[in-house]
């Protein structure tokens, strides 16, 4: 059987020489020289998030735990499954629950909602562990203070994303969990009806903070969790928060590089 000729080109090697392949991959050909290994990182828009060379400790799993990278990967998984879910889901009190049951009973390969939900939980966990790793390696110390702040904001956004998504299945679990959260908003000092100083914002007898104008009402678009709350949470979950999150992620990744790459002993 062994008629392997080392000088004979394999199909893959032939393919690498075609005009199409070379048009797509600028580095082209087999990545077998030091120069090409450098170029492949520089020429690829995704890989150039990384520097070309790293100190060895920085690629070790025991140092990084991969948690930051995995948080980003899980975010991408959530984006993709989220887009797929949006094809089936209508954010109205009338249809939401039915669409979710249809999703698991009628749609072929209907585990997108499962992947989406578990990935959401996983992302909260990976982000926490990433924060823990960054703390334990003292990576928030100068010059990386600002990136730690951006990280805390991303952590908060992750939890808000998860919180807004919690309402969308429109089942008992969803509306009562959001009700618990919304009641806390009503207790916001000064701008919540059940918060201390609710009567401070007033001119004479005219009170500006009341049942239809306070923090809870702003959050739900109503006095209780209903149609308006559903559309608010849906838009925030699918467009608003991901948009803000992308902005902060861009800054986060940029600053990792600008602050001198991943932390290490000096």
């Amino acid at each position, binding site marked *: 059987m062994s008629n392997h000729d080392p000088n004979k080109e394999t199909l893959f090697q032939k393919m690498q020489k075609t005009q199409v392949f070379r048009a797509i991959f600028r580095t082209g050909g087999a990545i077998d020289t030091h120069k090409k290994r*450098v170029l492949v990182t520089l020429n690829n828009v995704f890989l150039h998030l990384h520097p070309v060379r790293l100190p060895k400790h920085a690629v070790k799993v025991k140092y990084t735990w991969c948690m930051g990278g995995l948080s980003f990967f899980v975010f991408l998984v959530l984006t993709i499954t989220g887009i797929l879910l949006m094809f089936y889901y209508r954010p109205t009190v009338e249809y939401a629950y039915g669409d979710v049951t249809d999703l698991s009973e009628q749609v072929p390969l209907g585990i997108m909602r499962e992947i989406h939900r578990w990935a959401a939980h996983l992302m909260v966990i990976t982000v926490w562990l990433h924060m823990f790793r960054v703390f334990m390696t003292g990576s928030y110390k100068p010059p990386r203070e600002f990136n730690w702040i951006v990280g805390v904001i991303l952590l908060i956004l992750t939890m808000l994303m998860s919180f807004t998504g919690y309402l969308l299945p429109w*089942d008992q679990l969803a509306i009562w969990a959001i009700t618990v959260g919304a009641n806390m908003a009503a207790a916001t000092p000064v701008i919540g009806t059940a918060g201390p100083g609710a009567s401070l914002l007033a001119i004479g007898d005219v009170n500006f903070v009341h049942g239809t104008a306070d923090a809870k009402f702003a959050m739900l678009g109503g006095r209780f969790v209903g149609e308006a709350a559903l559309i608010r949470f849906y838009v925030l979950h699918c467009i608003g928060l991901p948009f803000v999150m992308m902005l902060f992620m861009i800054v986060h990744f940029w600053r990792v590089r600008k602050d001198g790459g991943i932390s290490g002993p000096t």
Partner: protein
Amino acid sequence: MIESIKLFINQITAPQISFTAIILLFFFIFPPSEGLYKFHKKIGLHKLWTNAGGKFMMGALFLFFCFGIMDENFRLIVTKADNVPIVGLLFLVVFFLWFALKQGYDNDKRIEEGKGPIEAEDAKEKVLVWPDLVYIELIAIVGCSILLLVWAMGLAAPLEAPANPTVSPNPSKAPWYFLGLQEMLVYFDPWIAGVLFPAIIKLGFMAIPFIDNNPKGAGYYTFNERKMAISIFLFLWLVLWIFLISTGTFLRGPNWNFFGPFEYWDTHKLEALTNINLSELVYMIWLGQALPDNILIREMWGFLLIGAYFVITPALLTVTIFKKVFQRLGPVRYSVFIVLLLLACSLPIKMYLRWAFNIKYLVAIPEFFFNI
């Protein structure tokens, strides 16, 4: 025999006992000061952060869940679809805690011997991103995808009855990552537990790099060089966050009553509500008279107590155990640090006031929704 073990575990998991045990043990396991660190080594607690210690902790946790899962009530709460991630979180937190501290203690030993942290040795060598990092990322991505696929195929996402605003489930729980806040609601009013504390937590976390001015321990694992910072951080993260989330998830049943892990969630479990406000304690019980009509006089004691907490405690701390900390941080950093620390400690203090004296509010002005 097994029943009595379960009964015993039900008893000791009550927050009064488990929380006290954790607080007492905490500063010996994660000593913030040189003296406690020496004692911690003397009694051998540093051995937790060796391979044997790691196997012991993971094994103990695993055995506990194996033992528990045979019990119907335990199984019911642990295998509830949305609770599964938190069981995973517990294992991950213990593992990574060990993983970080083991490397920290190993490095401390190297530093003691004058060799510098292991990361410094690794860092001398440079590697190319392609292929050295790219293939690690690929493996991590494939592993994570497999995990998610298996998890998604094996466990259905929860979907309960359609939303019904007229039927509220008992208990109504927030999403699991907010259960620490919901657990605080037992001890504080919503404006503190749900608004003030979350805001302080966020700002406090953002302030960490500006408070901690210790230049050591940047870019490598260590414990000895950053004892105090790590100890405080772990207290906030493990005790006041992960522990409260676990309690809120696994041990709070109908009417937010406490239920041991092997206890049946009885909707009719009655807990005596004997909580009183500080003003009632002072005037009605100690002085034996009616509450004064003037709100400020009525709540004077609470205000005095809180004022003293935020004025006298820092002063006392500054001249005693935090003397060196004050010198190192300087007045501005130190003020921010001490206010945040006192705010964080107010949670356990309020918990003990509740358990010991049934205190509901220190300052109770329901007229203005102002209760502390």
